[in-house]
């Protein structure tokens, strides 16, 4: 009998589920961005996101939650585009995420190191 061992992508997808939404919000904190811009930034090192398309269901969820808003705007580089911006509620949520994440990340780091796994 063989046993399924989760691969790298599988583990990564679980980890992303917890943090990716907040990463998107963090990218919008300083200024609004358009979809392609966000997608390229997030897939840059392929850790946060491996394919650009998965951004859009995420943005739809964030918009429905009231954490992101959208608007059309002219662009200097071509035709007008849809920009995504963080809302006040989104900023609140992000502000709560950051310390929670730091604590969680440190705790995991601490345990994993103690366990002798590669850190």
């Amino acid at each position: 009998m063989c046993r399924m061992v989760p691969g790298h992508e599988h583990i990564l997808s679980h980890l992303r589920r917890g943090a990716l939404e907040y990463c998107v919000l963090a990218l919008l904190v300083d200024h609004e961005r358009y979809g392609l811009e966000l997608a390229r930034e997030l897939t840059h090192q392929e850790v946060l996101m491996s394919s650009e398309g998965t951004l859009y269901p995420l943005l739809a969820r964030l918009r429905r939650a009231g954490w992101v808003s959208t608007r059309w705007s002219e662009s200097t580089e071509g035709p007008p585009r849809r920009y995504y911006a963080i809302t006040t509620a989104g900023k609140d949520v992000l502000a709560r995420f950051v310390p929670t994440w730091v604590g969680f990340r440190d705790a995991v780091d601490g345990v994993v190191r103690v366990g002798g796994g590669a850190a």
Partner: protein
Amino acid sequence: MNGESALRHPLVTRYLTELESLLGGLHPAERAEVLTGVGEHLEESLAGSGGSDVAVRSALDELGPATAVADAAYDGRGQVVRPAAPPAAPVTPRVRVVPATSRSWVPPLVVVFLTLSLFLSAGVLFSTLEGTGYVELLVTAVLPSFPFWVPALVLTLVSALWTGGEKVLLVALLPGFTVGVPFLVDLLPFGSDPVVGLTVFALAVVAAFAVLVVMTRRAAHRADVLVG
């Protein structure tokens, strides 16, 4: 090939159709929103690319498989039944909740009203005596077209189908035309020659309609993307 026509490339159509089918288990509004976002992403990434097969394949590769996008959409939803079979024929996305001012009837209505306003103002322009000041001219020319111009303005300003700059252009169209034509005629040498006046007038009409057509097409495309 610009971004808009890139969406009609067969590979893109196939991708979006497959994605739409995979998203069948979602609420229609949410499905449409995801499809819209992906469509706009492709428009943007293919703008200025020439629409070659290579460019389209590359853009779709970066987007990732439709199944991955669908997986992301179903994440955390538990027991949603997700369709497996590919669709028979392309179906355009439908959105339940689109604001009234972003519907597809808005651009044609605005263009008809602005056209009527331009006609009425043009009529006044023709019959106005020489020596009328610009301000007085503006008022007497724009006033008769108020019943059409004001609703067109309100709709334009409220609608999400035009950007801020485009709205400014549409608002300025009528006053610009009304004051611009006599101003140019006064400025030109031989301006009092009726032929010169008529030429300026005709050119202004063509320019105004060109602006209207471009603005309407842009807005109609955006309305299409929203409602399919």
